[in-house]
């Protein structure tokens, strides 16, 4: 691409200026008054852009992008009992959703059964409650796992819940070779941001590597690891921190898998990413473009990947939950639309759009339908899907992309110098960077340098309450009763034997997945399996800092 010369704009000193706040992105990056060719003297279109579908994939991983295939519309969903969530899934599939994404409740994410003391008050509140293979059979009842791709956000107990999913597929008679979906199995970002960890970092990394190895051999169409920046951003990071910490986490997983003896081109094509789609429209598009470029370069030049598919960064995006407001909740539909638009213009492979009521609770059916319709309007009415990377070549966007890339590479180098992500986490480096950024942002909001419509500006006194999904405490009772029944009727000798074998495997170096599968098939519960692993690996406690 040749950059055409612009006629020099007239002196801007006389032009009106807004002075109530500095012009920066939401992450605090200063924005110049105007972007033209003089801001792109270091920009080389052949090196920095390439064509869509060509290295370094800045413009997207496919030549035709959405002309060939739209992104997967995948709404993250799960609440209360497996029976209730199953009905929601059937509804979403009938409405034209093209993949499922399971949200689990906090006890499940923390490896506790629904009847554990720590689960009190939390069962079914933030997602669906799953304690055993029996619950998983109910969750996917009537849903053909060979045809519907399933993403699971599960992290610490990922290998256990994935084993339950694989066991349900066996019971449905579905060949594992035809299973497709993604495991959000990125434990590093838990220590960094979301804090739903069970075991210490090194044994957790071993479990993740076990799933990568097992998946590479046994489930060729399933993505065993989605490397996630979403939660880093929700914890208050900047766009650059989200990008840099996520890619550096990715590097860590690749290094562990190579150490295990896998060939990079065997597993790298099945790695995928998950990014936030936040408010700042151009900053977000730049972030996705820089992500593809850095990853392609890293895989080729740092790890020597040869397969083109290993170089292509595929990503899921979710609009920013933390940007939603309780005040004037219908404004959230507008925020979500703009954020989703940035994800699409940034070339996402799948997308979740938040519902207008999610600042309050998990979404109602009405709200989640509007959120899905938002994606359908973007896909079929807006026209933005007709040309790949339609903003490519914009002076502003290319400058932002180059700067985002350089800043992210700076962080990646610093973490390399610390010896990798685990030492960096142990030093609290990413945690502290994020906490500082989130505090700075909050202070900018308090000073009204950052405007949040309906919250610190344009407030209204007369707000109509909206319908909110209520999850009662009967879920815990219902799930606990089912568990008591299961424990009374299963073959408890088989359960004990399988848990003993799992512990011995965990103490050694065998891949734990086959042992976890045996325990799951014997109807050992999630809590029992995680307890067996806790006995071997210990539990993690972070040093809390403010």
């Amino acid at each position, binding site marked *: 691409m040749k950059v055409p010369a612009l006629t020099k704009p007239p002196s801007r000193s006389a032009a009106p200026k807004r002075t109530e706040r500095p012009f920066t992105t939401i992450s605090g990056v200063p924005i110049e008054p105007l972007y033209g060719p003089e801001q792109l003297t270091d920009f080389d279109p052949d090196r920095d852009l390439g064509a869509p579908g060509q290295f370094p994939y800045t413009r997207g991983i496919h030549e035709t992008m959405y002309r060939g295939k739209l992104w997967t519309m995948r709404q993250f969903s799960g609440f209360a009992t497996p029976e209730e969530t199953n009905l929601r899934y059937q509804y979403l599939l009938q409405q034209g959703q093209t993949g499922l994404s399971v949200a689990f409740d*906090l*006890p499940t*994410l*923390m490896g*506790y059964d629904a009847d554990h003391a*720590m*689960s*009190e*008050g*939390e069962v079914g*509140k*933030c997602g669906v409650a799953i304690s055993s293979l029996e619950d998983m059979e109910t969750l996917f009842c009537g849903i053909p796992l060979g045809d519907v791709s399933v993403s699971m956000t599960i992290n610490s107990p990922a290998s256990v819940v994935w084993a339950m999913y694989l066991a349900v597929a066996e019971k449905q008679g579905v060949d594992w070779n035809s299973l497709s979906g993604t495991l959000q199995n990125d434990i590093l970002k*838990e220590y960094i941001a*979301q*804090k*739903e*960890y069970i075991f210490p970092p090194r044994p957790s990394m071993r479990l993740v590597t076990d799933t990568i190895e097992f998946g590479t051999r046994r489930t060729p169409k399933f993505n065993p690891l989605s490397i996630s920046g979403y939660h880093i951003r*929700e*914890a*208050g990071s900047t766009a650059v921190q989200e990008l840099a910490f996520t890619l550096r986490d990715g590097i860590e997983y690749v290094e562990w898998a190579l150490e295990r003896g896998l060939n990079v081109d065997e597993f790298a094509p099945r790695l995928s990413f998950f990014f936030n789609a936040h408010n700042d429209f151009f900053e977000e598009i730049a972030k996705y473009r820089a992500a593809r470029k850095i990853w392609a370069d890293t895989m080729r030049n740092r790890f020597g990947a040869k397969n083109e598919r290993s170089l292509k960064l595929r990503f899921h995006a979710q609009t920013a939950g*933390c940007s939603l*407001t*309780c*005040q004037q909740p219908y404004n959230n539909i507008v925020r979500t639309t703009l954020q989703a638009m940035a994800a699409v213009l940034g070339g996402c492979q799948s997308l979740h759009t938040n519902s207008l009521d999610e*600042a*309050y*609770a998990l979404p109602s059916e009405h709200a989640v339908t509007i959120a899905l319709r938002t994606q359908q309007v973007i896909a079929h009415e807006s026209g933005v899907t007709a040309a790949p990377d339609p903003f490519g070549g914009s002076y502003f966007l290319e400058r932002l992309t180059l700067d985002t890339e350089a800043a992210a590479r700076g962080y990646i180098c610093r973490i390399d110098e610390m010896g990798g992500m685990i030492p960096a986490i142990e030093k609290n480096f990413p945690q502290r960077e994020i*906490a500082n950024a*989130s*505090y700075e942002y*909050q*202070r900018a909001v*308090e000073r009204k340098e950052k405007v*949040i419509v309906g*919250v*610190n500006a344009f407030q209204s006194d007369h707000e109509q*309450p909206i319908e*909110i999904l209520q*999850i009662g*405490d009967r879920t815990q009772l219902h799930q606990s009763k089912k568990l008591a029944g299961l424990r009374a009727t299963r073959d408890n000798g088989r359960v004990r034997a399988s848990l003993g074998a799992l512990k011995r495997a965990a103490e050694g170096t065998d891949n734990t997945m086959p042992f976890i599968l045996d325990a799951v098939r014997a109807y050992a519960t999630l809590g029992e399996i995680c307890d067996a692993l806790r006995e071997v690996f210990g539990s993690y*406690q*972070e040093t*809390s*800092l*403010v």
Partner: protein
Amino acid sequence: MRVPIRVLVAKPGLDGHDRGAKIIARALRDAGMEVIYTGLRQTPEMIVNAALQEDVQVIGLSILSGAHNAIVPRVMELLHEKDMDDVKVIVGGIIPDEDAAALKKKGVAAVFQPGASLEQIVDFVRATVPA
């Protein structure tokens, strides 16, 4: 010189989303208070024991998971059992209006819902603790 107000910021339940708790802790500290942050996954018993040992005047609970109706009343009971009714409890997080009203009836001094400003929270703590 005035003795600084002592505040325990606590994160009960299983939820790990500590962005809000950490921001509040920092804002109260920047406002001159002595802040103790418990870290994650505290039971009501652990929180009340920490409040006793640290001799705080205020406990701030951050709850985003919907478990507030199980956790907060238990904290209030334990404070009462230990003759610590003078400790003010404030709650922040995703708390629906009707739950906020019910918690206040159980003795919670204030509930700060999404969108509350740091200034409001700092001012409330200053006003509610006798000098």
